[in-house]
């Protein structure tokens, strides 16, 4: 899977690329509209991450260009501007998702995965992790072939962990994934805890394996 990251802030760009490469993606970087445009026209990517505010113009023009030559490429806007206008015009142009800086890397990773699933496999892909089988389109989980009943939030949580397998997911990023704006309430951390407890219990009951690992005071890791 090839991903083009267009972001002018080198440090941020490198972190994103490092994180995504650990996930097994091949990444290319561009810091300007000019360079981005060159790459967009020359090569084919599965996904493009694009910042709106670039030194030599707006990332929106790149979306337009990409839509013309490779309409099948998924697009995620990453922007510091929490402005409705950019969001709306970006999505209107054909972007698939919008992330506001600063974001959590697992969140970005999870969005890319979900986007690629939708784009490449039309959501029909089966995710098999050890004894767990996930059918993202139907929001169904099978363990050893038997369906497992999960609540909406528990399913989201499982998807988030599965997308970021082996990663330390902080309580903050989990809470933000589940509740967005409401995540700043410390109560939500308690809820993250109780959700994970439930999910963990259900998975252990059915599969006999504990996939979750506590990371001291920080969060959790999904190991499989």
């Amino acid at each position, binding site marked *: 899977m090839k991903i083009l990251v267009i972001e002018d802030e080198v440090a941020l760009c490198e972190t994103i690329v490092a994180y995504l490469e650990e996930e097994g993606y091949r990444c290319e970087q561009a810091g300007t509209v000019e360079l981005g445009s060159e790459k967009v026209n020359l090569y084919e990517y599965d996904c493009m991450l694009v910042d709106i505010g670039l030194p030599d113009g707006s990332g929106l023009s790149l979306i337009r260009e990409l839509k013309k030559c490779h309409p099948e490429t998924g697009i995620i806007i990453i922007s510091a501007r929490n402005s409705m206008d950019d969001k709306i015009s970006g999505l209107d142009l054909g972007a698939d998702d919008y992330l506001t800086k600063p974001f*959590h890397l697992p969140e970005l990773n999870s969005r890319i995965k979900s986007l690629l699933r939708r784009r490449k496999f039309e959501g029909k892909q089966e995710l098999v992790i050890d004894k767990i089988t996930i059918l993202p389109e139907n929001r169904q989980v099978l363990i050893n072939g038997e369906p497992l009943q999960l609540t909406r939030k528990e399913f989201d949580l499982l998807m988030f962990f599965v997308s970021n397998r082996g990663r330390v997911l902080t309580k903050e990023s989990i809470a933000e994934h589940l509740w967005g704006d409401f995540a700043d309430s410390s109560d939500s951390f308690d809820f993250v805890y*109780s959700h994970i407890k439930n999910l963990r219990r259900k998975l252990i009951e059915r599969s006999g394996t504990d996939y979750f690992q506590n990371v001291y005071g920080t969060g959790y890791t999904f190991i499989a």
Partner: protein
Amino acid sequence: MKLQTKINIRFLAITFLIFSVAGVLFYFALGRVVDQNIREMLKSRKAYITLNLQQNTPISESIESPDHTIFIKRTEKTEQYIVFSDTMAYDQEEKELIPFRKMTFSVHSGGQHYEVILLQSLLESEDLQMIIFSFMAALFGIVLLALFFLNRWLSNKAWNPFFKSLSVLGSWKIGENQAVNFDRTGISEFDQLNSMLENMMQKIQTDFVNLKEFTENASHEIQTPLAIIKSKLEMVLQDKTLNDQHYQRIRAAFESAIRLSKLNEALLLLSKIENQQFVEVAEVNMCQLIQSRLEYLEELFELKQIEVSVQLDQKVVFILNPLLAEILVNNLLSNALRHNIEKGKIIISSENQEITISNTGAGAPMDVSRLFRRFSKQTKASESNGLGLAIAHEICKNYNLQLSYLYISRMHCMTISKKSQISTNLHVNFD
């Protein structure tokens, strides 16, 4: 009071004063002239009578003219005198007492002394005086009226460009990129005013745009390093070789970075609202919005065992920016959740175009004067940045809504109402 009315009233008052003084003076002057005339008339008659008496000695002791205006009688008094006086006498024709001017004088003729009394009716001259005066008064009245209308018409015409400019100013909204142009009026003062206004508005517009750019750039510039800090820390947290102490330290840094970025977002939002950068407005069904947000929060309520009672049967529609409406509801709901107690209660009700969100919470009522100020934390909830209510208040202020706080029956009640409407029905139902 309108400037025109004020000028007109003053103008009329002064004109009226001048006219009144002139009228009084005119009246007295007229009186003097008439009086002078009568004296002259009496004097000439006196000369005539004196001449007659000196030529013809009268036969009888006293003579009276047929029109009762001349009385001549012999007298013993020898001194010469002329006395004028006013008197009233009965007039046969008019059948009433009418004023007369009386002239009494002595005549020496043929060794005899006569006293002559001449009477001159003042009726006609007084009538004349009245006629002239009323005519003048009527004329003054007409002139005054004419001046009033003329003045009004003239000032209306003269101030017309001013009112045009005023309406242009009134419809001008900062942030909406509309060209401002005033018509040429041909009046130098107004043209000057208009050109000054044009320059000023241009300046305000560019300043506004600059400010907007600045806040956006500032946001970009601050958010980017924050994003880097956060992501780098997140990367470090992935390191499996770290020990617990390292985790703890990095976590602390990570948490602070998150708080800082949330704070920056909130401040930015606040300044954007204050700068009225959210131009788009729509009718927002608040009940529907609250319902959808509540679904989102359901689990958080359950966790704290908070009993939520929703009475949103009456539809409430506010006109505001949809994004801000969402933020407003989010802030109020998360406040009601955050500052609530275990097994507490939240009551959300709509009534008379008002939305009230009440929650149980820590004992004492909050200080209203400080409640909506930035960074004024009245509780110890450390994750609160003290901006939530300031933002909610600012949003309401911008869309002609009122956010008010009351402490009723041990519950903190936040009410959003339309500003024009005075909230009379502010009670909350408790079951």
